[in-house]
């Protein structure tokens, strides 16, 4: 098929539609897949079997297809839909319904600026593999994360329940405190890259090296920044060991008055945030879609990488697979932390945020700045 005969505008439109469809399907299913991963990974870590009972049953033949517990997620969704959608009598009905959508929207919309691969050339049209390539992508993500707090605060405030309001206060205090730490820890890396554009950040990491022999990935020249940012993102997504806002087993959290699908939207927002942070960490600290030594060949040309000779589309697919694998590994690490560590006390979280992570992040920033000036 010869692409140069097609009007470029059609290729543009088709490309945009394909990109949006791809990202939306990945993000929307990530909630389901990650809850399955959470169940199964925790089970395997603790020498258990995990979810294996729900199954698609074919009647009269007696066939059961449990599909390794994946059906449990469908059962959950079914339960969420048919469950009573309870709104407390004195709650503000409009805001009560709006809050879970606010939480979910902020986490989902941030994916618009996250690239999932380099760029592809179809005919004369170059399509960057981002829905919305932006000069200020990092700022956009952080701005939307700040909006995500509103969903939590509104949910707790309009529920007409003291304990929900207190949970929302805990949540907002925790998330807003750690936004300071999150922003400052990443500044060292951004100072090195001298850009806020995710695509340029990834490009920088590919064209530079650390100390001459390591790849230029952020994790190698900003190890402290990576550690601090990883911890800060764990706090931001409100999961164990920092799940004080929710704390399902002991204290009452901000979504106590939510049931059914609205409650599940909060859970889904958490899972989407965990995917989002894994994605951002891969872009900033793990070289995005880059593999060491793998260069993009010209259209129709080939490149040598390790023992393989790869064509243009093979390299594109390999890069996207590399990106996906890095994200999966980081999600696995988040789950590992979530199922290994006990919960922090509230004052310990604040102590860690303001007295340990903030000074360390500032020190990291100052040292990076001095090194940057000295190198110039």
């Amino acid at each position, binding site marked *: 098929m010869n692409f140069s005969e097609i009007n470029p505008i059609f290729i543009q439109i088709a490309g945009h539609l394909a990109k949006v469809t791809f990202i939306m399907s990945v993000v929307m299913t990530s909630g389901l897949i990650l809850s399955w991963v959470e169940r199964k990974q925790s089970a395997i870590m603790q020498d*258990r*079997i995990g979810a294996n009972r729900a199954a698609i049953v074919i009647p009269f033949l007696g066939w059961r297809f449990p599909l390794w517990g994946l059906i449990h997620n469908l059962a959950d969704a079914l339960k969420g839909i048919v469950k009573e959608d309870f709104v407390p009598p004195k709650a503000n009905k409009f805001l009560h319904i709006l809050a879970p959508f606010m939480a979910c929207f902020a986490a989902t919309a941030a994916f618009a600026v996250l690239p999932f691969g380099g760029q592809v050339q179809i005919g004369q049209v170059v399509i960057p593999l981002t829905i919305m390539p932006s000069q200020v992508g990092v700022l956009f993500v952080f701005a939307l994360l700040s909006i995500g707090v509103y969903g939590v605060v509104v949910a707790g405030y309009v529920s007409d329940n003291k304990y929900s309001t207190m949970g929302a206060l805990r949540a907002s205090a925790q998330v807003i405190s750690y936004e300071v730490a999150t922003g400052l820890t990443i500044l060292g890396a951004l100072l090195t890259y001298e850009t806020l554009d995710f695509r340029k950040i990834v490009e920088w990491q590919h064209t530079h090296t650390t100390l001459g022999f390591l790849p230029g990935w952020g994790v190698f020249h900003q190890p402290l920044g990576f550690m601090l940012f990883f911890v800060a993102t764990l706090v931001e997504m409100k999961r164990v060991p920092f799940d004080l806002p929710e704390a399902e087993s002991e204290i009452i959290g901000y979504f106590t008055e939510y049931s059914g699908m609205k409650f599940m939207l909060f859970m889904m927002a958490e899972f989407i945030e965990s995917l989002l942070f894994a994605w951002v960490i891969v872009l900033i600290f793990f070289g995005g879609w880059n593999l060491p030594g793998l260069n993009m060949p010209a259209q129709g040309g080939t490149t040598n990488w390790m023992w393989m000779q790869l064509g243009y589309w093979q390299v594109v697919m390999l890069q996207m697979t590399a990106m996906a694998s890095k994200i999966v590994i980081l999600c696995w690490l988040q789950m590992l932390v979530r199922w*290994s560590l006990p919960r922090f006390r509230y004052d310990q979280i604040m102590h860690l945020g303001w007295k340990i992570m903030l000074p360390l992040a500032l020190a990291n920033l100052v040292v990076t700045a001095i090194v940057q000036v000295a190198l110039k």
Partner: protein
Amino acid sequence: MSKPKMNAMERLYLPEIFKGLAITSRHFFINLGLHSLHKLGLAKAREAMVTISYPEVRRPYPLVARSRHRLTQRQDGTAKCVACMMCATACPAECIYIEAEEHPDPLIEKRPASFDIDMSKCVFCGFCVEACPEDAIRMDTGHFEMAYFDRKDLIYDMNFLLNDDPYAIKKEDALVLASDKK
């Protein structure tokens, strides 16, 4: 209570966290590898999990475990019970109801006309078994699951107790009484 003193490495916190993560991820990878090997039919001898898939697989109960009652039989199939009321007297939950009648055999004084145990009251203490002078009541069937939609179903009558089918104990061990073995 005094807090245990931590040394410098422990106060740094991160090394200890990495130790913990190493333990959990070791479990994860070993178990994942074993699960994969089991799918291929290898290394079946080594278990990847401690879970017992309960309704399909049952853990073997010890022989001394007290489970649902049964009444032992004479060789002709009638109850060994002589309706002496010892078990009903010993029962702290008062869940055994016996009605006595005359036994046709002149050598045996009485036999139960009806023998009901109300399982909704039974506390599984085993005093009835201890009290029985005739070894007529035992708690060795291995049945533990007694769930019904109606309370009436929890009252077991003599016919049921006489013919209860034990599965936890092997038949040749359980059903043949010591006195019958001679």
